[in-house]
């Protein structure tokens, strides 16, 4: 799935986009916007991680979620403005490539979910120190479905789907940050096996080719790794933990981070596909 299939009529507009105002003036200074895009990503990501880790019961546990939300709000918004502003510029200048890119499509869909999660749900949950309003519940449900769709597009697009590995990596990272000792250990072992396994298979066994059998082994290893991750995260989220919010608030926090990671991973794999 990509935008050329969804909006086939837009081809002419897309191809002409780099020649339109103001992008036509920005072609020679393209590179700094690409670099600033990463700066915005880091700032936005840092704020998103700290707010949502708190809802998960980790990180700045001595502050209330509402205090963290209030302190980080200006920087979260600054990061979002930088990343979206520069993204519009580099996107418009690369419009023809992005139009046919499933990674970009997955990125945009996931961004919709991430924006709803961050600015429509997680911020209000943090402001209310973990209380979730009915509106927030509905918005979270919609955002979750949108994110699942993005993940589906991402993981079924040939050539791009290895990028889903980053989402799994981030899931394990979050588990290792906020989980109990046992889950941390299990997560660390599972991820090490997954990552080193990939490494060894590629490098020493010679899995580096598109033969079906190797592709299948990689796929099932990743699916097993994902299921293990879902199981461990589920256990941690539904296990009572004093300094954390309710299980639903923790799920919201988890998906807020993962949806942004999906946005970033999609972005990186536009270039690799």
């Amino acid at each position: 799935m990509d935008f050329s299939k969804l909006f086939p009529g837009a081809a002419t507009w897309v191809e002409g986009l780099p020649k339109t105002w103001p992008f036509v003036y920005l072609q020679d200074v393209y590179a700094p916007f690409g670099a600033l895009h990463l700066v915005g990503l880091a700032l936005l990501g840092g704020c998103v991680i700290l707010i949502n880790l708190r809802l998960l019961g980790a990180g700045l546990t001595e502050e209330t979620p509402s205090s963290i939300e209030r302190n980080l709000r200006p920087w979260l918004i600054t990061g979002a403005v930088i990343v979206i502003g520069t993204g519009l510029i580099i996107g418009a200048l690369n419009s023809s490539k992005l139009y046919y890119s499933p990674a970009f499509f997955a990125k945009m869909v996931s961004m919709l979910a991430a924006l709803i999660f961050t600015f429509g749900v997680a911020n209000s949950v943090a402001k209310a120190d973990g209380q979730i309003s009915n509106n927030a519940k509905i918005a979270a449900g919609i955002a979750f479905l949108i994110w699942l769709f993005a993940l589906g597009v991402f993981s079924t697009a040939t050539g791009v789907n290895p990028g889903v590995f980053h989402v799994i990596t981030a899931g394990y990272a979050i588990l290792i940050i906020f989980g109990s000792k046992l889950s941390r250990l299990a997560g660390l072992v599972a991820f090490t096996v997954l990552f080193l396994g990939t490494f060894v298979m590629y490098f020493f066994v010679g899995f580096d080719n598109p033969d079906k059998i190797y592709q299948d082994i990689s796929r099932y290893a990743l699916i097993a790794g994902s299921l293990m991750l879902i199981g461990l995260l589920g256990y941690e989220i539904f296990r009572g933990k004093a300094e954390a919010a309710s299980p639903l608030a923790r799920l919201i926090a988890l998906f807020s981070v993962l949806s942004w990671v999906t946005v970033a991973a999609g972005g990186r794999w536009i270039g690799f596909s």
Partner: protein
Amino acid sequence: MFHEFFRWLAEDLGKSDPDGLSWSQAMHGSLNLWNLIEGTHVLAIMFFAGTIWIIDLRMMGFAFKSVPFSRLNDKVLPLTIISFAVMVITGMFVFFGRDPLLYYHNIWFRGKMLFLLFAVINIFWFHYRVQKDQETWDAMVKPPAKVRLSGAISATSWLLIIILGRFIAYDWFYCDKVKPGSLVYALEECKSALSYLDDIPEEEAPPDGDAPADGATLEPAPAEDAAPAQPAPAQPAPGNGG
């Protein structure tokens, strides 16, 4: 200076027979391995730079003003340190698995390493000097000048490290493009980078010849082109097994 070492790393290490590939070349040619590691490196900046900037902002008196520095630092720093380890390890593999010589003779990479050194020196200065009397300024909304300075050095260094790191992918100053005798030529030690030309003319592709293969790495096109040129994502031939 270290050209010969990195040439050995790139071309000889792990090479079992004369016609085979070195480990670096095998990784360079892999279908997804390098991409996965580089992607992890880039995505980890969310966990690393994002969190260290929040600490820096507190040191400069711009964020979490009502929260004592130590209360923020003690909780955030473990996260920052672990993600720093992830950045360094993945970064070393990114360096090794593309073409060590391409990075070694790259002006942006050299600048990035310089600011990395600044950032690390600043960490030691902060830890062993500035933090000595932490209890006197811990709760201050606006900490003393040395603390604000250390925060500013850190924030700026990491900002520049990200920007310079992104610029490595652009081939404006690759050794085969810069004028011999120019400042960049000297700073990149292009003389040793291009020394292979003296020994074995037209046998191998220049080490700096192939641009990093991610499509996002692109050189801005001349103005008359519609968009910045997207070089075909040069997916090198599978290195092994195939």
